[in-house]
């Protein structure tokens, strides 16, 4: 990191945070102004805010690494999202706008009862409180690896900055900063993609890079075969992904709050549809960066693991360091051979000569087999030397490229992208946690509290949830893969929540008691299934939702406890 990088990084972050705070300095006068920005957001502001809330630093750090290791099949996870946007625009937006609610859970009290609303709010608070911590951990990982700082210090620094502007300006500050953050994110994506192609050897262009990646199975975008245990295929994306998106955008306050802030139903709908149009191409672009990274490292020496702290740990161990040095020497030799084989393959593709392509592929397969053998030895060494350390290195791939290969100035810009995205996403979650705490828990308990009092409690709730998120982030280092961890956590809670809202929207004869009991039983069942089986996590969205709807219907039939709904 040069002085220029520090200036770009610091300047970008301070400008975004400073401008957001300044623009929204008068936000705390009313609860509506503080939590929903006075319901004045335009469709494009809502759309950008929705994108920024979903796209955290994890998106930037973890997704390219996932494509690097596993190819582009993760894209299928997002296939259900545009469908969900349409369904939410049709069914949920009119209801929320008509009732002028602050939170999605507020609607449940009118439809069922106070107890069901509190249950839904509680489930949201647990799930979002935990995943917000994960969102904070990702950028802290970057800074700690970069600067050698203690990760706790880094988590506190980033979390503290985010808490400060969210407390100061509320929902409007979150939205204003998110608009700039999305601008920086898209700029960073384009720059990184361009440079990755630019850095390929002479004579190897984008087309050859795609052929090399395709030959290694990295362009596995769509798989129509059905496998219940497969996390990413067309069917899991169109069903589990759809249900996850329905739950996330339809019942998770961190997203519902974004479009509740719209100045009309029209603006909210258009904001959601904008997200439906942009999300899949955006994820495709981020995954493509991962594939280009893979090709880049076929021509440039890749380390035994991108997880630098793990490498340093093994290198410092007297018992394992000699073996590491031996493997690193073999890796250096193999890198030269791999580069040679890949270059031959790329030139063969460019020549369109089938015989030449077949010969180059055979050569390449030989070096691949050697690389796999070396990786097996390296993984065994890492496991022996550091049994508790994170074995996967996918979260480090992109950032390692940024730090080692980008020119000065752009390193600062890409780090600003990662950090501002992290803060934007976590701030959206934090703001929603505070809203739910105040609107769904505090206000019903203290109905005589005025607006100023509620704003004050919202500010303190923001601080409280922020500090709790920081605490959880400090434990996140033990988790396997950040983006998967966030999605798994979401899928465990979202299914039941979506089922509850489905019952509320579409089954008017089911009352509060049946809905409440069904949600409790379904949530417990999902957690039990996650613990006891190896079902792909996306399916829990459908299972949880189906259980709530089925059980609520059954309970209502067996025990005629309540008459039809109040709404």
């Amino acid at each position, binding site marked *: 990191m040069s002085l220029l990088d520090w200036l770009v990084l610091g300047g970008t972050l301070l400008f975004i945070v400073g401008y957001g705070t300044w623009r929204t300095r008068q936000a705390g006068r009313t609860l509506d102004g503080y939590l929903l920005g006075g319901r004045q957001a335009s469709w494009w502001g809502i759309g950008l805010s929705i994108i920024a809330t979903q796209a955290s630093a994890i998106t930037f750090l973890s997704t390219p690494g996932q494509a690097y290791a596993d190819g582009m099949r993760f894209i299928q996870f997002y296939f259900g999202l545009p469908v969900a*946007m*349409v369904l939410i625009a*049709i069914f949920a937006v009119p209801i929320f706008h008509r009732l002028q609610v602050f939170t999605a859970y507020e609607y449940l009290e009118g439809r069922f009862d106070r107890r069901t609303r509190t249950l839904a709010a509680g489930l949201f608070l647990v799930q979002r409180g935990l995943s917000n911590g994960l969102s904070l951990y990702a950028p802290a990982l970057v800074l700690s690896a970069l600067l050698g700082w203690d990760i706790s210090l880094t988590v506190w620094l980033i979390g503290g900055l985010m808490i400060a502007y969210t407390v100061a300006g509320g929902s409007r500050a979150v939205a204003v900063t998110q608009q700039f953050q999305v601008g920086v994110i898209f700029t960073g994506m384009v720059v990184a993609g361009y440079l990755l192609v630019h850095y390929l050897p002479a004579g190897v262009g984008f087309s050859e890079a795609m052929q090399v990646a395709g030959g290694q199975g990295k*362009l596995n975008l769509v798989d129509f075969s059905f496998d219940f245990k497969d996390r990413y295929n067309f069917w899991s994306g169109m069903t589990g992904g759809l249900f996850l998106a329905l739950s996330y955008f339809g019942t998770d306050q961190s997203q519902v709050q974004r479009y509740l802030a719209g100045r*009309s139903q029209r603006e909210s709908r258009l904001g959601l549809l904008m997200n*439906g149009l942009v999300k899949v191409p955006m994820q495709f672009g981020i995954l493509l960066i991962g594939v280009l990274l893979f090709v880049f490292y076929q021509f440039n020496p890749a380390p035994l693991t991108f997880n630098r702290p793990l490498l340093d740990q093994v290198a410092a161990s007297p018992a394992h360091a000699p073996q590491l040095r031996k493997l690193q020497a073999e890796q250096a030799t193999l890198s030269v051979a791999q580069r040679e084989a890949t270059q031959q393959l790329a030139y063969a593709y460019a020549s369109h000569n089938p015989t030449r392509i077949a010969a180059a592929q055979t050569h390449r397969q030989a070096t691949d087999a050697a690389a796999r053998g070396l990786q097996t030895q390296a993984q065994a060494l890492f496991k022996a030397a550091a049994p508790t350390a994170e074995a996967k290195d996918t979260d480090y791939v992109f950032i390692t490229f940024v730090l080692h290969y980008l020119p000065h100035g752009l390193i600062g810009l890409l780090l600003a992208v990662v950090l501002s995205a992290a803060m934007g996403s976590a701030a959206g979650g934090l703001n929603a946690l505070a809203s739910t705490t105040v609107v769904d828990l505090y206000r019903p308990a203290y109905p005589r509290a005025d607006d100023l009092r509620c704003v004050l409690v919202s500010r303190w709730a923001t601080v409280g949830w922020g500090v709790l998120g920081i605490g959880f982030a400090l434990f996140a280092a033990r988790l396997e893969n950040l983006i998967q961890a966030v999605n798994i956590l979401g899928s465990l809670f979202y299914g039941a929540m979506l089922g509850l809202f489905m019952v509320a929207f579409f089954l008017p004869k089911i009352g509060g008691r049946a809905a409440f009991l069904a949600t409790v039983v379904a949530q417990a069942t999902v957690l039990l299934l996650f613990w006891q089986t190896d079902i792909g996590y996306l399916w829990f969205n459908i299972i949880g939702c189906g259980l709530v709807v089925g059980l609520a219907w059954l309970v209502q039939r067996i025990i005629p406890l309540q008459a039809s709904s109040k709404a």
Partner: protein
Amino acid sequence: MTKTEQEDTINWRAWYWLVLGALAAEIGFFAYLTNLFA
């Protein structure tokens, strides 16, 4: 013109089909790429 009247002027069905059509086109393109490099 009120907000409600403004909303009435939008052909929402066309918007929904635009989003779903874009998704179908993207999946078709991805399937093409997958087969091309398989």
